[in-house]
């Protein structure tokens, strides 16, 4: 009788098949984006449903980069997304720390209010937001988008950061304070390094949300030189036709910063950074 412990080969094959199926399912739209971006204009309609185009061209990419305002949109998006991610994370880290560590009057009410803000459908608030921004004279400015995105993302980001702070044992700060730190020093030297995964996750979350946001960008920006990338994409749709090839090429290019960003923060997302802190 052979050992029962040996895993069934059929099971292994099944496991990898399931993984492969999932990967193909998830990555197929991205492949299609790339494929259409690489297909010459003339072939788009004739070979629309073929898995591999019979001919490949980079002209869509060069056109998008050198002959459209794509680079400007791209830069605007970068400014807005980085700005929103930075400010949201900054405020959320402060608020999350307070929620995690301190008892203060009105804490429950503030948490409840933050939850309530998450319940309104966006469409309901668009008009008032437009009015506020207009009265502040911030229409068609990237600042308006940074402010709005920051405001919208803070509640969720705060809860996210709070849960990360909750995961850092309070004893560590106490120990640091016994070792001669002020509370602020303990925060910088002990809590902050351990919160890097949390900060990374929050930055990444807000960055991607801001990067792909369309509704507010469409409402608050109408001038071409302040457009962000998702709004800019719509300029590929003209009255009479849609320039699919260029639109897809632009889409592929737009994925690059998100990918780079995640590669960059990925090492901070590694779990288990606090293991070994307490107990055994």
């Amino acid at each position, binding site marked *: 009788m052979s050992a029962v412990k040996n895993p069934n080969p059929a099971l292994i094959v099944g496991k990898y098949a399931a993984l492969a199926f999932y990967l193909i399912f998830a990555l197929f739209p991205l492949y299609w984006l790339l494929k259409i971006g690489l297909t010459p204009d003339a072939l788009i309609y004739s070979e629309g449903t073929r898995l591999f185009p019979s001919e490949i061209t980079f002209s869509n990419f060069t056109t998008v980069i050198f002959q459209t305002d794509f680079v400007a949109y791209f830069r605007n998006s970068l400014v807005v997304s980085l700005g929103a991610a930075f400010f949201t994370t900054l405020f959320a880290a402060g608020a999350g720390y307070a929620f995690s560590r301190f008892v203060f009057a009105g804490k429950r009410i503030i948490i409840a209010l933050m939850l309530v803000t998450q319940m309104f459908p966006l469409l309901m608030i668009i008009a008032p937001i437009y009015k506020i921004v207009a009265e502040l004279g911030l229409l068609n400015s990237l600042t308006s988008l940074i402010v709005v995105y920051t405001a919208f993302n803070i509640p969720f980001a705060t809860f996210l950061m709070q849960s990360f702070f909750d995961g850092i*044992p309070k*004893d*560590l700060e*106490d*120990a*640091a*304070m*016994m*070792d*001669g*730190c*002020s509370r602020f*020093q303990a925060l910088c*030297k*002990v809590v902050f*390094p*351990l919160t890097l995964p949390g900060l990374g996750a929050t930055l990444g979350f807000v960055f991607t949300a801001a990067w792909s946001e369309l509704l507010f960008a469409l409402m608050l920006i109408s001038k071409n030189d302040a457009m962000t990338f998702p709004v800019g994409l719509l300029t590929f749709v003209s009255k009479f036709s849609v320039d699919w090839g260029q639109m897809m090429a632009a889409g592929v290019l737009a994925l690059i910063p998100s990918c780079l960003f995640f590669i960059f923060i990925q090492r901070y997302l590694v779990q*288990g*950074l*606090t*293991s*070994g*802190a*307490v*107990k*055994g």
Partner: protein
Amino acid sequence: MARIELRDVAKRYGSVEVLRNIDLEIQDGEFIVLVGPSGCGKSTLLRMVAGLEPISSGDFLIDGERMNDVRPRDRDIAMVFQSYALYPHMDVARNMGFSMEIRKDPVAERKSKVAQAAETLGLSNLTDRLPKALSGGQRQRVAMGRAIIRDPQAFLFDEPLSNLDAALRVEMRLEIARLHQKLSATMIYVTHDQVEALTLADRIVVLNGGDIQQVGSPLELYERPANKFVAQFIGSPTMNVVPVIGTDTGVTAGNGAAIELPDQPLTAQAKELGVRPEHIDVVDNGTGDLSAVADVVEHLGSDTNIYVNVEGIGSMMVRKHGNIPVNSGEQLGLRIQTENAHLFADDGTALRPVA
């Protein structure tokens, strides 16, 4: 080195009072153990001494100077946490030298002190490891190293051994005792384990429900417990306590058996009689103060534990040194060593001969 005083200290969380009327004077170099059941306020008291928890009322003094509102970093006290609280992102050497890093001591001095402490604690070949790559006992040592490197006025320990297995606990207990001898620093040690308390302490403070029950040397607490709580908390196995009716010359147990207690005045007020298992003698059936049936007998080699059923009283425990030839189910006579018996009044306070 420091003399620590607590004067009528109390701690309240909102309207809940978790510690009250704490009066304690700790001498320079003394090893004080705070002992009590879980939730009685030991950690809270320790954290107030450390400065991590504000003191609700009363005075806290170090060497005669009021320190209530002094920040932890300015009290010059080191603390070893129950969870060890090692900084997970720093290696062993940096964990131990962190206080010197914060004080901006010269790097060379820091290195030599860390090396010295690591040597003392047997951690020399582990100094570049992260805490997660250490065993529980090693983490415990690093936590102690972090404290001793500072050469503080006083050490605080909050149940430092409770996460270790039994063998390691005994070893570390010895090491802490040695450390105290070597440093002769003031130490306050919290535990819920009375064996640790009895073995380590110069004086023990027994806490229960936020009140100090008794302060005294281990032997004082064992021989002259102030009340029923201390009597049952200190000493292992636990003291037998049985309800009795006080008479002029002794007490009468529930089954009508009269026990003469010539060494104990005030017997008339007695409501309960306490006898430690080691203070009951086994005698021939029909003689002695009580008659009993052996229920379970444990032969430990060095000792024999006999759980007995006493008619009209219930179960009691007897512990005798050496191997006693008693079998389960056997009829026994029990004689109480009256000079070692304790009497408790209605409210649990011990009745003592007036000295």
